């Protein structure tokens, strides 16, 4: 057997763009039978895109995928499954009302005929029996006739694995499989993985958790910015080396120098907690300062922001704004007190696609343009047009609907809407997600300008260069807990990543155990 045949999956030059945005570029990947291969990288590094191509949910623009020597061409979920590639999704794709057995056989039900000629009836007893055997093999004591909704997340995950095995999966992709599991459940999962390995099943293991990766994986492949960075055996790569591979990139002069001086404390957060989301968050924001909030996905960054702007209610802790203890009841309340929020979910929380650029811009400050019972169009128009010029929003006209603008311009409209409420503090949650580099640079310049005007900025970002390039201080969250408050001098990609990965269990699980 030659060496190449040893690889069950062999990927070369795989590329994928979404309308000009490179999600994956020249990806290489070799997977051996019976190995657990970790795929690592920051959020947005291209892991998901790669996985989606492998399971047939996306079509690659270029490159080849060889599966057991055969080229995998078209994007077809069924075909990938038939070849033997299965994925255990992060968000469980199960039908809660159907039984365990019905879920395992979903889409390839065992059939039987009725009265010898009426065909197309499902053979539930047969499926149930086979599912039972399968679950037994996995050491899972579950009634296959139990509706899925009664299962714990860990059990559902095991059922998903059972489903993959029953599919004769040769490659199983696991996307953050332990994110919702307890220690005991993780241990059980690792036993199953070990068992699968022995049977020659290859596993692609996506995780942010270093301890896990070092515990069960044989090989690590790192992606960054959609590019393949390298593949190393776990034994030859220490944690520092891995972090450098994941984040190591140069920061150019993308980030403008700020002349802002640090002013008085504007916002103080003391022991802010929300059950199941985050606990004991503690920081100050000064006027003229950019405070960064860094962390991995699920660290609770957005949740903290939502609590600060009244979209969610914190369960305990204090917020002081302008030196006074305050509560923020609703987004309207936040705006009135002088706190503006630009959501990470631009489409969901940012703008109204059907309304014009002007109407979106003035939406949060509309009562200011009221004359008597009616809106003064003149006043509204002039405020909006000034903002369009100021932020250089590219529109065909002020009446253009926001829904048809590019992502960068939509984001500028959302920021402009917030600025028109004259906030003293503006919280920017992933302000540059999904927008091109030019618009990014303009937003960076804007952030600097705002702080120079004495405004305080909280910047939440998954892009470390952004955090490092713009922030005066950085709060690092890990699984809902604040693990560091770093000064500019202390902030490096390595320190931030180290603190971001400090905890591996969600905050609510920890609280339950304590």
């Amino acid at each position: 057997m030659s060496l190449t045949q040893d690889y069950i999956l062999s990927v070369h030059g795989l590329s994928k763009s979404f309308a000009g945005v490179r999600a994956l570029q020249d990806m290489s990947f070799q997977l051996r039978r019976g190995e657990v291969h970790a795929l690592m990288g920051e959020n947005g590094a291209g892991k998901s895109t790669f996985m989606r191509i492998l399971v047939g949910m996306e079509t690659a623009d270029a490159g080849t995928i060889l599966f057991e020597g055969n080229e995998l061409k078209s994007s077809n979920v069924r075909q990938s499954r038939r070849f033997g590639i299965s994925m255990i999704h992060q968000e469980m794709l199960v039908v809660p009302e159907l039984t365990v057995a019905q879920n395992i056989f979903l889409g390839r039900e065992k059939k039987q005929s009725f009265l010898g000629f009426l065909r197309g009836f499902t053979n539930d007893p047969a499926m149930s029996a086979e599912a039972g055997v399968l679950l037994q093999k996995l050491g899972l004591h579950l009634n296959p006739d139990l509706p899925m909704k009664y299962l714990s997340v860990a059990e559902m995950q095991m059922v998903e694995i059972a489903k993959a095995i029953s599919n004769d999966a040769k490659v199983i992709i696991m996307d953050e499989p332990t994110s919702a599991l307890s220690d005991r459940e993780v241990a059980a999962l690792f036993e199953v993985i070990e068992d699968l390995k022995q049977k020659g099943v290859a596993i692609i293991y996506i995780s942010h958790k270093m301890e896990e990766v070092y515990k069960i994986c044989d090989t690590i492949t790192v992606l960054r910015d959609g590019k393949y960075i390298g593949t190393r055996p776990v034994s030859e790569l220490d944690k520092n080396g891995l972090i450098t591979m994941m984040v190591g990139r140069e920061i150019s002069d993308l980030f403008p120098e700020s002349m802002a001086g640090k002013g008085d404390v504007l916002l103080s957060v003391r022991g802010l907690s929300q059950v199941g989301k985050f606990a004991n968050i503690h920081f100050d924001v000064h006027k003229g300062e950019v405070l960064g909030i860094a962390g991995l996905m699920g660290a609770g960054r957005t949740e903290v922001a939502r609590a600060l702007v009244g979209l969610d209610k914190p369960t305990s802790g204090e917020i002081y704004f302008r030196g006074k203890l305050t509560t923020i009841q609703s987004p309207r309340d936040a705006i009135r007190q002088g706190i503006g929020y630009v959501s990470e979910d631009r489409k969901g929380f940012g703008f109204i696609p059907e309304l014009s650029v002007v109407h979106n811009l003035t939406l949060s400050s509309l009562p200011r343009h009221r004359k008597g019972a009616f809106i003064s169009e003149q006043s509204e128009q002039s405020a909006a047009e000034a903002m369009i010029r100021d932020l250089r929003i590219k529109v065909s006209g002020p009446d253009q609907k926001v829904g048809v603008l590019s992502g960068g311009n939509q984001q500028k409209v959302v920021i402009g809407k917030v600025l028109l409420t004259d906030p003293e503090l503006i919280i920017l949650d992933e302000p540059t997600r999904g927008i091109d580099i030019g618009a990014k640079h303009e937003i960076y310049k804007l952030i600097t300008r705002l702080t120079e005007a004495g405004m305080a900025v909280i910047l939440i970002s998954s892009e470390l260069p952004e955090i490092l390039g713009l922030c005066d201080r950085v709060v690092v969250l890990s699984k809902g807990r604040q693990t560091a408050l770093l000064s500019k001098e202390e902030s490096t990609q390595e320190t931030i990543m180290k603190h971001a990965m400090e905890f591996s269990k969600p905050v609510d699980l920890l609280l339950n155990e304590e």
Partner: protein
Amino acid sequence: MKETLIAYFNRSAESPALPTRRIGKYGIFLAFILLCVLLSLMTPRFLTVANLTIIVTQVSINALLAFGVTFVILTGGIDLSLGSMVAVTGVVAATFAHPDDYPLVVPIGVGLLAGVLFGALNGFVITRSKVAPFIVTLGTMTIGRGLALIISKGRPVSNLSDSFNFIGGGHLFGIPFPIIILLVAFAVCSLILKKTVLGRYIYAIGGNEQAARASGIQVSRVKMWVYTISGLLAAVAGIVLTSRITTGQPNAGVGFELSAIAAAIIGGTSTSGGSGTMAGTLIGALLIGVISNGLDLLNVTSYYQQVVMGAIIIGAVVLDGLNRKSR
């Protein structure tokens, strides 16, 4: 997911309005005019002042309800209790409208108040319970019908004063009074929608409720307003109807909500909220009126009219769907 992502990225700042969008926007006006021309050619009795006056008078009640439900649909809601509110408010007003009992403002005031309270109740339950408006107003539709029967003890409330009967049957400057009410209501509703903060917020909520809330809009308050306005307009319709038939009928208005919703939808109000105009709704109501009048003049039985009307409603929604896709 894949499609939406790609569609999202493919949108450019200069994407031109597609032709189907234009047809969608003005199609209903064109269809209305075309229909009128067609009917004028087919029967000489259509294009006469007398006939047109009849049409508009008949349309007025449906149009009033349709204006109210347009506000509601624009926020992404629905109001199925319109017909029952017509009955309740009509019966309440009639109870106070017997000759020499009270001055005219009393039956009108009490009737309108009943509508406002009923509408506010809809809004209150919907915003507090977070139960779908469809379900809530389905419930209050039945409650309202029951209330109308309770208040009237199941009997028509007749013997109404002449001044009260003027509302639905009188003329001012030779124009039937219901038409004047219709025009005033149309003007006021258009102004609210186009020129006030409330109007803007209504569009914003229908367009993206979460974003509206994040923008500082008190979504619950706006929703309270739209259901209350819907109740108020239903009360106006109830009073006009009661006055026109000179009795408060507890069984009046059955199915009126469906014609009103149909008018709003035919008039281009998006069923998921966020887009639509009062002018569109008015045309929608007139279109329904003209079709049934025209089919009458052409001696088509009312059975066929229902089939035609249903087909038009579906057609309008399909058009709305095509619009949505082209965006």
